[in-house]
């Protein structure tokens, strides 16, 4: 039995819906992580670090803008980057749960950054060759930035891990706290599978081993201990978040929610 036009249309719609969600997840992870880094501005341990964190933040928000704009076009309901960033509630955000975790101390910020940088390195390296040329172009730009982000975060990881007893203790504790969010990075669902089947995205499971090798190499240099695996996959990318995201969005969206359409 061959597919009827109606069946083909339904399949196309499901495919486009999955592509929208896939791009939105990448966008939200960059946006939320960028917003978190922005919270350091004026409070970083040194003037130079203040600027460094702001630079990373702006890179990530820049990536989010390109991805959100593309997601809005894929969705086709007239939502632009601003509507997607400022007018969605927490359950509609589909970032990785790790990205929304609080800054806590500098060690937590660095571990969170380093884990996501390593993940983005793997994903952007492969998305650069996506059959979706728009996504490939965004990934190519993001990849250049991400290589620097990884240099920055892994440098700090080693400096703190292989630093003083106090810095070692604190960064190991940050690693122990945040490690439980890493299974989500490699847990594919139907959106990921549709995208990898279509050649748009790499199979997520393919990233786990190179990511793990990179992580272990840095942990060795930093004299840190890899925590035991924790099987529970968090579901931020399905819209199920920890309580921290709501607070982040309240601050990020406050102005547009209070003064809708405000421009300056």
């Amino acid at each position, binding site marked *: 039995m061959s597919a009827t036009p109606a069946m083909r249309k339904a399949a196309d719609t499901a495919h486009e819906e999955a592509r929208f969600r896939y791009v939105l997840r990448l966008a939200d992870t960059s946006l939320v992580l960028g917003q978190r880094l922005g919270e350091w501005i004026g409070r970083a*341990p*040194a*003037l*130079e*670090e203040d*600027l*460094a964190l702001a*630079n990373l933040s702006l890179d990530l928000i820049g990536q989010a803008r390109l991805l959100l704009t593309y997601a809005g076009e894929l969705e086709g309901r007239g939502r632009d980057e601003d509507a997607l960033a400022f007018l969605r509630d927490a359950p509609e955000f589909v970032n990785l749960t790790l990205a929304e975790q609080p800054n806590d101390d500098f060690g937590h910020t660095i571990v969170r950054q380093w884990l996501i940088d390593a993940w983005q390195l793997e994903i952007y390296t492969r998305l650069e060759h996506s059959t979706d040329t728009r996504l490939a172009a965004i990934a190519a730009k993001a990849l250049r930035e991400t290589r*620097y982000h990884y*240099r*920055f975060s892994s*440098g700090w990881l080693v*400096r703190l891990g292989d630093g003083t007893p106090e810095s070692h203790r604190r960064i190991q504790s940050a690693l122990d706290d945040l490690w439980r969010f890493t299974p989500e990075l490699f847990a594919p669902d139907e959106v990921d599978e549709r995208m990898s089947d279509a050649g748009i995205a790499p199979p997520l499971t393919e990233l786990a081993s190179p990511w793990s090798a990179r992580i272990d190499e840095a942990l060795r240099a930093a004299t840190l201990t890899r925590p035991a695996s924790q099987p529970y996959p968090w579901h931020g990318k399905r819209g199920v978040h920890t309580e921290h995201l709501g607070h982040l969005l309240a601050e990020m969206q406050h102005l547009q929610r209070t003064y809708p359409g405000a421009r300056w």
Partner: protein
Amino acid sequence: MSEADWPLFEVFIRSRSGLEHKHVGSLHAADARMAIEHARDVYTRRQEGVSLWVVRSADIVASDPGEAEALFEPARDKVYRHPTFYAIPEEVKNL
């Protein structure tokens, strides 16, 4: 961790290939790698350069201001050392 614990580094930027590195300022960093990263983040945000040098400020040997007269005054009346007696071809850039 306070910034006062971090040594001072001087930063030099080459604005484009073929030109020399120029001193642009200084910053604090815990080590050389961090100094390069800070220099990148503080001084090249607006495409100011294509290459960076950093050097520990403590490693720079400076002339003594008290000796300025002995060091620099004798050059004052030796105008013949200036290459102002030559016509420079228009094609020569960056001289």
